[in-house]
């Protein structure tokens, strides 16, 4: 190979490398300008719900239990106005083989890689997805490489990420660990080129479709359990795949009236690619550092078109603070006897607050949990934070400043999900779509696409476009 292996050289071959590594010709779904054919892409390159249930079921993925959190419901009613305080349920996704809902995404991706004849799979992730891909690769007898962003320049790593490396190795994967920086993608591309393995991206149509079974199961389980669809489903939101897949699954089950809420940990002010701030955050996923950029520009992912498009499906988007999530993780163990990892409890912290606005006979479902263990647990995460100069104390979580302190609520009544302005996020998406495509004017079909992709209206998009000074032709 006399290919140029410099950063610029490899990045310039990005599309060519990707095409070989995912087996999808994304150009087929492209239109002129901004739009692309999302639903055709999902239909032609994904799997049907029945196929996915079959694929996942054959490796023990899915059909996770749904648990009613009766004590947490009673607790939330202590702080609710009269007649309020919805019943809280949780879908115990930690029961999947690799310990998180990510097994659903990985099951499809690795099955697909095997079907297409790839020898191995690669995924770039510091999260639960690595273990999920490694677990599935083990089942299918494929080789597996996981690329992690793990350390700062002092070689100090988040205990949570180190645990995930251990888990990947436990399933026989090779783990490549890097220091902080977006050039992880460069290393990832070089590995794809070197090995010819399949890119088990989080954002392919089959990966996202893999989560549809979660939303579908959830609706069916609630109908069996309480005789109706859930009123609200809360999804922890980072790259958008969890929310997108769950919402699509709910729709496939016919749960048209269920409100889908995204929830992210508020890490405002921390730069995700900063070496010095890397270990100042106590959440490595499910936070606004991914949630907002991916909502406002989903195609920043590692495939040309991301199948995870959270704005399409999000009815409401809330944030919670790190201290609130740690507190709720402890509450889940102490009041419900269920010990799970903190990141998955982001949506639980939000649900605890949202339930207080809802009627007593309504149902709110937290759609995931994740496994816990050494490193991936509130105690090592909090003691790591303390060692890194983060102040930990009881107080009012609204005073929390990411990177400086973690404030555990001095009373559970202080746990408050804070609404983000979805209109602002939609505007930001539209602005990004114009900028990334370098357009001076846009067509009416692009207007329609933007309205769909932001779950807004033609009038809304037109207004934003006019404000941006862009012509409509």
């Amino acid at each position: 190979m006399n290919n140029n292996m410099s950063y610029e050289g490899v990045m310039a071959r990005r599309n060519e490398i990707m095409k070989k590594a995912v087996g999808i010709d994304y150009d087929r779904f492209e239109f002129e300008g901004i739009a692309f054919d999302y639903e055709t892409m999902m239909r032609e390159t994904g799997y049907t719900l029945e196929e996915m249930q079959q694929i996942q079921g054959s490796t023990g993925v899915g059909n996770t239990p749904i648990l009613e959190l009766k004590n947490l419901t009673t607790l939330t009613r202590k702080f609710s106005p009269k007649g309020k305080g919805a019943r809280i349920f949780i879908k115990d996704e930690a029961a999947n083989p690799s310990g998180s809902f990510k097994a659903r995404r990985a099951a499809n991706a690795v099955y697909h890689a095997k079907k297409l004849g790839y020898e191995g799979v690669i995924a770039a992730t510091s999260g639960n997805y690595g273990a999920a891909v490694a677990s599935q690769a083990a089942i299918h007898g494929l080789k597996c490489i996981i690329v992690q962003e793990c350390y700062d320049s002092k070689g100090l790593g988040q205990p949570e990420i180190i645990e995930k490396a251990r888990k990947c190795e436990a399933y026989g994967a090779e783990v490549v660990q890097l220091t902080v920086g977006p050039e992880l993608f460069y290393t990832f591309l070089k590995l794809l080129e070197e090995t010819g393995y399949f890119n088990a991206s989080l954002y392919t149509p089959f990966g996202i479709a893999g989560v549809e079974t979660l939303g579908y199961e959830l609706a069916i389980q609630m109908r069996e359990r309480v005789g109706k669809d859930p009123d609200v489903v809360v999804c922890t939101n980072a790259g958008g795949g969890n929310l997108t897949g769950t919402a699509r699954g709910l729709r496939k089950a016919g749960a048209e009236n269920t409100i889908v809420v995204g929830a992210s940990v508020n890490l405002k002010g921390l730069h995700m690619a900063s070496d010095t701030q890397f270990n100042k955050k106590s959440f490595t996923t499910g936070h606004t550092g991914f949630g907002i950029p991916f909502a406002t520009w989903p195609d920043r992912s590692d495939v040309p078109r991301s199948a995870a498009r959270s704005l399409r499906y999000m009815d409401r988007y809330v944030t919670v603070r790190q201290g609130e999530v740690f507190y709720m993780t402890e509450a889940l163990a102490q009041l419900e006897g269920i010990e799970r990892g903190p990141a998955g409890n982001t949506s639980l912290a939000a649900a605890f607050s949202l339930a207080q606005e809802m009627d007593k006979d309504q149902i709110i479902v937290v759609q995931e949990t994740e496994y816990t263990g050494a490193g991936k647990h509130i105690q090592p995460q909090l003691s790591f934070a303390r060692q890194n100069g983060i102040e930990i104390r009881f107080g009012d979580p609204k005073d929390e400043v990411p990177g400086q302190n973690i404030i555990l609520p001095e009373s559970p009544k202080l746990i408050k999900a804070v609404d983000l302005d979805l209109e602002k996020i939609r505007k930001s998406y539209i602005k990004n779509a114009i900028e990334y495509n370098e357009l001076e004017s846009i067509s009416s079909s692009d207007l329609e696409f933007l309205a769909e992709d932001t779950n807004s209206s033609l009038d809304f998009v037109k207004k934003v476009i006019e404000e941006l000074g862009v012509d409509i032709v």
Partner: protein
Amino acid sequence: MIKKGEWVLIHNIVLKPEERAPQVPEDTKKVPLEMWVKGFLLEDAQIGDEVVVQTMTGRRVKGELVEVNPAFNHSFGECVPELLQIGLQLREILFGGEDHE
């Protein structure tokens, strides 16, 4: 002397500071992009030597030998006393006191 075939950790520099991506923040631009990977040592060597390993997937990777039989040392961390108070408080609210429903 570390024998051929031993399980080791190697380290190398992927990008020097001046080769880093343009969009990287200033503090990150000052440091190199580093990488660690584990594999079986292909020739006898000493710590600090430039070596080649064969990884779990069979790839051959070159780098500086930093550790033999690398172990995971992450744990449940140090005691965070504040956590002890949460369960006590929640049980008091739910099951104790005069406010009990």
